[in-house]
């Protein structure tokens, strides 16, 4: 699958099938600090994702 990580600006390809929360663990991203978007829609950390998905991991941050 393709994953865009907003915080670092990286676009990575990763072989993964399973829950979003395990994917975030694998990428060492705290679920509290991000929202995950698939096809323009928000998904939760309990949702399943697979190889064909394209995900965006957007940071939850206060600009100040």
């Amino acid at each position: 699958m393709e994953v865009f990580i907003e915080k670092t600006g990286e676009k990575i390809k990763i072989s993964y099938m399973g829950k979003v929360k395990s994917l975030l663990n694998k990428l060492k991203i705290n679920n509290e600090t991000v929202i995950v978007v698939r096809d323009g829609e928000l998904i939760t950390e309990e949702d399943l994702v697979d190889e064909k998905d394209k995900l965006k991991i957007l940071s939850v941050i206060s600009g100040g």
Partner: protein
Amino acid sequence: MMKCEKCLNNAVISNPVLCKTHFISYFEEKVNFTIKKFKLLKKKGKIAVAVSGGKDSMSLLYLLKKFSYNVYALAVDEGILGYRDRTLINMKKFCIKNKIPYKIISFKEKFGQRLDDIVKNNKILPCSVCGVFRRRILDVHSRGFDVLATGHNMDDEAQAVLMNLAKNNISLLSRLGPISGKKRKKEFTMRVKPFYFCSEKEIMVYSFINRINADFEECPNVPMSFRLRIRGMLNDIEHERYGAKRNVIDTFQALSIKTTKDDEKQKFCIYCHEPSSKEICSACMYVKTLKTTTI
């Protein structure tokens, strides 16, 4: 897909488990509850909203406008190249589109220097001077309004509680809460936090669902701050134990810390005549040491 706990639609958030529609209701009811419980806003009051162009303040502006409050956007341009100039463009576009009057006041016009230059010329930590100058601008320009509403959220508040505990700063600690300040003073416009019980993540979800064109960039000066370390620590705890941030502010509310200084007579700075706890206010101290032009 995970389903909403109130209907059969797909959930967009898992704490609580809600779909788009039910999340919007949940979020707006929570903000409305906070406003009513702490008497933060009056329906016909004149409300200044401190805006930065980021998701918190833009969502607040959007929501208060949706609730039909009489809002006016007040923005500070600190002079942070590549960051604030961009967030302010978003803010202006949003205000024009939604017919919200706005005003931008810059550090340059008020204090003679941009924050970038202050940091470069004085080898000083940006967050302390920035906080003092921002506060002064908002204090002065919110006069004449009934309240100044800020986008401070539950994460900000929980971080502030822990930071001030770690610093043993009882005075700053006692000013926290949904209404800022130890007590109401006629010299200051009341500052209120309608997002007091909303987490940063909830606000992000709200702004995403409502397509609020906020800037999600982070201030480049944040990595230098103590707050960043506290934020990371709190997010780690929240991840393991949902509700920890809320518990921090609920406990803080229950303790309702008071100081003995509440009834002190308000003093005024001998230079700028603005309210100050010292003979010379912090803003004037900076202006003197930074060798900037007059405020």
